[in-house]
């Protein structure tokens, strides 16, 4: 028995080793190096790095631009949560429990945009939503309305950029959630029907708790991946403008690192973003996962 245990241990390590190595080389080591760089001023290639201590971190919290970026990031997260998580969840519930026909058709239709490159999408929307000469502006003018010049307002630019990522992400999240709903055991749903329990109570008390793990996964995906996805339309359409109004932590990190070559500031911002994500994940796991285990 003891021998077998030992063998199991060796095998476990052997099986985990390749993945662990890849994680170490491509994820963990760069994070540690980024942390190291965040204490220096360096332009990526100069032979010397100037040690500046915590200055880069202080600038994140004192520089008004950085504060604006952090607020924008929060705004992006809230908006993405609504657009890419709550709305698809709502619609997948409607499709699953209230519309019985054409489920596959909806799946396919909603899924198609997620096959397109986001660069293509961003360029397309930049043309479609052009407030002066785009088709949307044209139709609105015919209806006696005007499309505001959204590229000149940070808040409106953020909304449009979120809508573009929504176009891309919606279908994927929708299919994931719908699949999750499909795995709720049919006999339980049938039982609620027998007991003539209202549908909304069945959804609230049975479907939501049972579908929690998928929903949790999509939620995390929305936050973490969403902030990465908005990078592309920001880069293609606004470059973070007007005056950083549509920039977020990720784009600003990129701007500092690879446009201005201020690796120190960029690394500090990346580390702060990393910590924020860690906290978010911890909160999600604590609250959402905690509740799941109570149901089990």
């Amino acid at each position: 028995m003891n021998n077998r245990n030992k063998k199991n241990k060796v095998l476990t390590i052997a099986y985990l080793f390749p993945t662990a190595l890849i994680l170490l080389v491509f994820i963990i080591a760069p994070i540690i190096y980024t942390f190291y760089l965040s204490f220096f001023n360096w332009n990526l290639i100069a032979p010397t790095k100037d040690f500046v201590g915590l200055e880069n971190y202080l600038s994140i919290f004192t520089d008004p631009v950085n504060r604006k970026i952090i607020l924008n990031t929060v705004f992006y997260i809230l908006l993405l949560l609504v657009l890419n998580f709550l709305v698809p969840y709502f619609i997948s519930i409607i499709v699953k429990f209230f519309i019985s026909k054409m489920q596959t058709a909806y799946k396919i239709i909603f899924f198609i945009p997620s096959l397109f490159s986001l660069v293509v999408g961003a360029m397309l929307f930049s043309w479609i939503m052009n407030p002066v000469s785009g088709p949307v502006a044209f139709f609105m003018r015919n209806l006696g309305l005007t499309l505001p010049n959204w590229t000149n307002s940070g808040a409106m630019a953020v909304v449009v950029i979120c809508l573009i990522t929504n176009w891309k992400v919606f279908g994927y999240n929708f299919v994931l959630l719908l699949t999750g709903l499909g795995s709720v055991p049919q006999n339980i749903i049938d039982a609620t029907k027998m007991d003539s329990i209202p549908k909304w109570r069945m959804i609230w008390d049975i479907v939501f708790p049972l579908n929690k793990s998928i929903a949790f996964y999509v939620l995390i995906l929305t936050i973490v991946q969403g902030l990465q996805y908005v990078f592309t339309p920001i880069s293609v359409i606004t470059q973070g403008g007007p005056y950083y109004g549509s920039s977020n932590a990720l784009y600003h990190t990129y701007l500092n690192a690879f446009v201005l070559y201020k690796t120190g500031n960029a690394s500090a911002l990346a580390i702060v973003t990393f910590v924020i994500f860690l906290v978010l994940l911890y909160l999600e796991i604590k609250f959402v996962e905690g509740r799941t285990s109570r149901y089990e």
Partner: protein
Amino acid sequence: MKFLTLFKRAVGVVVLMMVAVLFAGCSSGKAASKKVVHISYWHVNAQTQGGASVDALVKKFNKTHKYIKVTAKYNPNMYQGLMQNLQSAQASGKVPDVVQVGWAYMNYFADNFKYLTPTDAQSKFDGSKTFISKNFTTRTLSFAKDSKGKLVGLPYSLSTPVLYYNKTMLDKYGIKASSLSTWEGVSAAAKKIKEASGNYGLYIQEPADTWAQQALQLSNGAKIKENGKAAFASAAGVKAYQFYQDMVVKDKTALHTPWAQGVDDFVNGKVAIAYTTVAQASHIKQSANFDVEAITSPHFKGHKATVPVGGSMLAITAQSTEKQKAAWTFEKYLYKNSSLVTWSKGTGYLPPTQSALSSKEFKSYLSENPMLKPAASQIKTAVAWTSFPKNGLQAEQAMIDARDKILSGSNVQETLKSTQEKINEQQK
């Protein structure tokens, strides 16, 4: 069992050796006496932006030069992308041999990379040592000099901003093109168009640099940099920006929008006049379904029109002498009149040498494309694109931020002043 493995290994080794001999045989066939030098050329020209002419030029060079083999590599995301790739190349120790460097990156390049100046290349490899002075004017060479006055590379592609106008629209409202030679005239025309049609009168390009805005300030007698310090918040500089802000914010006769959208609005006939680079000429010509013409940059009344030059230079980053020599030979080929005209036709940039500009081939190309004429005539009076010696990229970003703020309505004088102070602070 053991014997079998040994045998297998032996067979493997023999096969490997045979393959090696075979390949070695391939490369040593013709050039047994002289070795072929391989060099790589990094450019930013996508297939739609002259990439095809880069390929054609390289192909022709390889055909006519037996002992040099050039490989062209396209770098996405323009000069910024190329600079990023060059950094990783430098880090890995495998640098390209000839690279295109955008003007905005000149000081950064000169400070951080190892390169061979054209002057050194000429004295090292040429017999006559007159190539540079014979082909380039002092003015053109000044574009490629860093803050210490050292020639970093040779000017390769030149561009200047020109004023495009929708002739159909201007004719309809009785506006003469000759009135657009001053910014005051442009503003009056824009007002007339706004009142009559509701369309915008003017769009000035807003990419991730302030090139066109600098032209605006320079053409009011302002200086961007004086004695190594930022000086654009002078009275003349403020006045030029105030004029621009009034058109955008107060009169709403000028459009404030990202570059791609602004040009789209112009070619869709929603903006009457566009002030943007000559490199947009072929795109505008192809996309507009109205009569479009171009004239030289306007100036403010009482001042001369002055434009900063855009584009790039060629720099030699090759490290070994034989590669440097090959790179220099390749550069000299690229500066031949026929090569430059091919290049110009493919990209819309203007040729950097005097003899190419006045060559018959280029002149006939100009008469087919009259929109390039104003840009070519401006080259003679253009100035170098302002490049700050320290933290130049951050200085450019500060100027972009100032533009963003001003066009959103913040106080012109205060914004320019604080930006100028910020840049000068970074110069210390």
